[in-house]
C-alpha cells in the first residue's frame, strides 16, 4: 500500500512538473474551467436558496385560493360565491379577497395593492412595502398619490413601511382598507378579486378543490401545495435560468472535451513516446494523465465553488443580479440565506470533474498504446 501511494506521489510530481512546462496554456484552461464551475454553482446556490426560502416562507400561504374565470381570464367573483364556498363540507372558513395591480407612472412601476383581512390603518391610510418607499422616496407620514379608475387621484397617508427584511415577499405591496381599494379601482361592493378557503383537514384539500370546481364550473382552485410546486419548477433543475446557464456550460465543456479528445499536441505525443521509450508502462502513462485531469479539474471545482459561494452569499450576486432583475423598475433587494445541498454539489462534481478527467484519458490511451518510435516520429 505504501509503495502504491509513493508511486502515485511520484506520478503526481511528474504530472505537476509537466503541467508547469506549459504554464500559460494550463493556467488559462484552469481559469476558464473555474469560471464555468463558478457560473454553474452560482446559479445552483442562488436557485436552491430561493427554492428553500419559498418553501419555508410560503408555508403560510392560503390553503386554497379560488378564482373565477370568464372567457379564459381571471374575473371578479360575486359574494354569493363566497357563501357557496363556505357551505362546502370540510371548509372551515371562506373569505373574499381584494387585491390587484396598480401602475404608478411616477416611478414607472407596478404595485400590488392589497386589502389585508384586518387592515390596521384608518381610511385614507396605506402601509407600503420597502420597495415602493424606495421608488417614491417615501417615509412614514408622507403622502402617496395613486391614479384612480375614474381618472382622479387617491391621496393616501403612509402609515408605516413594511420592514426591509420582508422585501422578498412585500417590496411592491401597498396595503389599504376596503373602501380605499374599491374607490381606487372602481370595484362595487359585493365583488372580490378571489376567495381563500381554510380547510378543516389539510389532507382533504384536493377533494375540496374538486368539490369547488364541481359546484362552480367556471372556478379555478389553487392549493398551497401547487403554489409550492410552482416555485419548485421555477427554480428547479428544469427551470429556464438553470437550463440557460447549464447549456452554456455544457457547450463550453463540449468544446474543451472535444479539443482534448480529438488529439494531443505534438509536444504531448512526443512526451508520451519518450516516456514509453525509457520504460514507462501504458498504465503509468494513463495514471499520469488521470492525475493531470484530476489535478486541473479538482482545483477548478474547489476554486469555482468557493468563488460561487462568495459571489452569491457574500457578494450580493453582483454578476448575476442584473440578469435576474428583468424590466421592472421596482426590484426587491434581498440577501439570499445560504441553503446548500450536498447532493447538488455532488451532481456539480459529477458534471464537471468526471467528464474532463475522462476526456483527458482517451487520447492519451491511444498514444500510450502505440509504438513509441512511431509516436515520436509522427
Amino acid at each position, binding site marked *: 500500500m505504501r509503495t502504491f501511494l509513493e508511486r502515485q*506521489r511520484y506520478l503526481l*510530481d511528474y504530472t*505537476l*512538473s509537466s503541467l*508547469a512546462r506549459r504554464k500559460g496554456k494550463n493556467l488559462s484552461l484552469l481559469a476558464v474551467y473555474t469560471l464555468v464551475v463558478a457560473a454553474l454553482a452560482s446559479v445552483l446556490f442562488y436557485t436552491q436558496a*430561493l427554492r428553500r*426560502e*419559498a418553501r*419555508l*416562507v*410560503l*408555508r*403560510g*400561504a392560503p390553503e386554497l385560493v379560488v378564482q373565477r*374565470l370568464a372567457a*379564459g*381570464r381571471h374575473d371578479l367573483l360575486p359574494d354569493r360565491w363566497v357563501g357557496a364556498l363556505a357551505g362546502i363540507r370540510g371548509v372551515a372558513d371562506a373569505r373574499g379577497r381584494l387585491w390587484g395591480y396598480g401602475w404608478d407612472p411616477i416611478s414607472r*412601476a*407596478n404595485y*400590488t395593492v*392589497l386589502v*389585508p*383581512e384586518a387592515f390596521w390603518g384608518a381610511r385614507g391610510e396605506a402601509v407600503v412595502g420597502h*420597495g415602493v418607499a424606495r421608488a417614491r422616496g417615501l417615509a412614514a407620514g408622507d403622502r402617496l398619490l395613486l391614479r384612480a379608475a375614474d381618472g382622479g387621484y387617491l391621496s393616501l397617508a403612509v402609515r408605516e413601511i*413594511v*420592514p426591509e*427584511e*420582508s*422585501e*422578498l*415577499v*412585500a*417590496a*411592491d*405591496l401597498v396595503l389599504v382598507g376596503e373602501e380605499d381599494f374599491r374607490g381606487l379601482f372602481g370595484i362595487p361592493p359585493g365583488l372580490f378579486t*378571489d376567495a*381563500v378557503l381554510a380547510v378543516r383537514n389539510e389532507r382533504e384539500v384536493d377533494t375540496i378543490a374538486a368539490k369547488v370546481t364541481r359546484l362552480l364550473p367556471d372556478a*379555478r382552485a*389553487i392549493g398551497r401545495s*401547487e*403554489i409550492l410546486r*410552482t*416555485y419548485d*419548477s*421555477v427554480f428547479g433543475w428544469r427551470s*429556464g*435560468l438553470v437550463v440557460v446557464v447549464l447549456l452554456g456550460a455544457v457547450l463550453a465543456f463540449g468544446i474543451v472535451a472535444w479539443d482534448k479528445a480529438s488529439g494531443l499536441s505534438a509536444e504531448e505525443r512526443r512526451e508520451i513516446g519518450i516516456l514509453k521509450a525509457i520504460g514507462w508502462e501504458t498504465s503509468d502513462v494513463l495514471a499520469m494523465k488521470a492525475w493531470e485531469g484530476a489535478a486541473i479539474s*479538482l482545483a477548478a471545482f*474547489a476554486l469555482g465553488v*468557493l468563488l460561487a459561494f462568495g459571489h452569491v*452569499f457574500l457578494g450580493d450576486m453582483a454578476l448575476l443580479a442584473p*440578469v*435576474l432583475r*428583468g*424590466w*421592472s423598475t*421596482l426590484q*426587491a433587494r434581498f440577501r439570499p440565506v*445560504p*441553503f446548500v445541498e450536498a447532493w447538488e454539489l455532488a451532481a456539480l462534481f459529477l458534471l464537471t470533474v468526471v467528464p474532463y478527467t475522462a476526456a483527458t484519458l482517451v487520447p492519451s490511451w491511444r498514444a500510450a498504446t502505440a509504438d513509441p518510435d512511431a509516436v515520436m516520429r509522427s
Partner: protein
Amino acid sequence: MRASTRFLLSLAAAVALLAAAALHARAERAARAPEIAARAALVRRLGLTDLCLFTEARYTRHPSQADRFAPFQDHPGALEHFPSGALVPAPER
C-alpha cells in the same frame, strides 16, 4: 518541498475553506432564522401567495396565480418580458 506536497496542501486548504463555507452557511441560517420567520408571519398575516421577484408583469409577479394564457393577456403577441419571462416558465396549468 515536493510539487505533490505543495499541490496536496493547497487542495487540503481548499477543502478546509469549503468546510468553512459550510460552517458559515450553517451559522448564517441560524442567525437569520428570525428574519425568515418574520417573512413567513407576514405571508400568513396577509395571505400572500408569491415571492416578489419580478414585478413587471402579472404572470411574473404572481406565477402561482397565473394561467397559461397570462403572458398573452397583456396584448396579443406580447413582447416577452425578457429576461424574467425566460426565467419563469409558463405555468403548468
